[in-house]
């Protein structure tokens, strides 16, 4: 593999990892809110979170582009998001968030709420209960969900190409690179990237299953 191809691979891994960390706070917050209690509008929020999973990724990308692009009211950002790596980060985050929320929600639902209640009677406030009781007990499910989100982010195409474009060296991820190379007839490079894509996806999904699977048998 050439230096350019390695750059694409490292960029993809780095931005996918960053997006997974970015969605962690909001993903856990949403998952927890959905796992505990009933509140007005809960089913609407649930549905919106699931949308990026079932809508065509280009459609989601178009929504992002419209909201962010200069003529979509997003012009108040002084620095550019569209057609930069930040747009890649955004696209990956939006597309992989639903996977994290679903896994984390299941994990939170499996935590006995009585334990949280008793922790409160022992004097622990909301945040302390969340971080010392809820999260550790939901740990495996959360990590499994993060790995799943990471795997999804690695493979993201439709939304990315819409809102970040396919700019070599700047926004070109592995999937975008495969697409360009095939289009211009550089098949060898396309296959190199394909191999990298398969290896990365395999590792991510296998480790995700490891965390999610073990929990059920424990």
């Amino acid at each position, binding site marked *: 593999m050439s230096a350019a191809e390695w750059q694409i691979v490292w960029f993809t891994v780095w931005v996918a990892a960053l997006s997974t960390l970015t969605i962690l706070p909001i993903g856990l917050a949403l998952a927890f809110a959905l796992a505990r209690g009933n509140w007005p509008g809960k089913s609407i929020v649930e549905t919106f979170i699931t949308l990026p999973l079932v809508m065509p990724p280009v459609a989601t990308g178009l929504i992002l582009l419209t909201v962010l*692009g*200069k*003529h979509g009211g997003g012009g108040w950002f002084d620095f*550019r998001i569209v*057609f930069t790596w930040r747009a890649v980060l955004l696209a990956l985050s939006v597309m992989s968030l639903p996977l994290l929320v679903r896994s984390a929600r299941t994990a939170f639902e499996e935590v006995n709420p009585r334990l949280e209640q008793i922790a409160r009677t022992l004097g622990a406030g909301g945040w302390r209960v969340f971080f010392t009781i809820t999260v550790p007990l939901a740990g495996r499910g959360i990590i499994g969900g993060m790995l799943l989100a990471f795997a999804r982010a690695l493979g993201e195409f439709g939304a990315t190409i819409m809102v970040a474009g*396919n*700019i070599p060296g700047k926004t070109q991820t592995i999937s975008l690179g495969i697409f*360009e190379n095939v*289009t*211009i007839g550089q098949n060898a490079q396309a296959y190199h990237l394909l191999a990298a894509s398969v290896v990365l996806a395999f590792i991510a999904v296998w480790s995700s299953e490891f965390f999610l699977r073990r929990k059920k048998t424990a």
Partner: protein
Amino acid sequence: MNFRVMKRLVLASLLCGSLNLRAADITVFAAASLSDVLTKIGANFQAQTGINVEFNFGASSLLAQQIEAGAPADIFFSADEAQMARLENDNLTDPATRKSILANSLVVIIPNDSALQIKSANDLTNADVKQIALADPKAVPAGVYAKAWLEKMQLWPAIEPKVVPTENVRAALAAVASGNVDAGVVYKTDAAISKNVKITYEVPRADGPDISYPMALVKGSLQPDAAKKFLNYLSSKEAGQVFTQYGFLLRE
């Protein structure tokens, strides 16, 4: 519902499907910049001969890749010689039918409401021009031509970091029209199509590369006669008038 009836229904629908295909007559894979003009010409042709023409418009490089992969095209109408040569080298087109009748010129466009001042190639290097949309300069003809121009002006290294490559020239046009980029380089004929962009600089013929639109019969064509008829029609005076109407230049 028993199996026999199912089988007959499937066969019947397949038959109907193939009947439909025959009605399409010929398929033309053509460069994106030819979208509007060829649709018009194709309609004229059908009115005269009754032969229906279906178009697949896109970046010439993408179309070439599709033909290489076996897509059913009767005619390939490319925006540059390189993509035509690509197919000829693979023995996918008939060299005897190859002809180039059109040329075009490049322009720099900006969004209609933009206040940018770009009066020369050099102005593209200004700091307030942050992102420039080009059709992918690696292989899409419009981008390849734009890069050739800028290389000739010795401005390519300064401009390359600002380039946002798009899938084809119409996508570059759309990017400028929506205001997502500051400027773009497209064909003059494209700029005329959109109301949301304005031409801020026309590339003089001397500065730009030689733009050529070759067309040829695809060897795998199932309708070679109908296809050749259309190729001839495209070279006719009648078609030439429509081309000129849309801003294309005729090569002679």
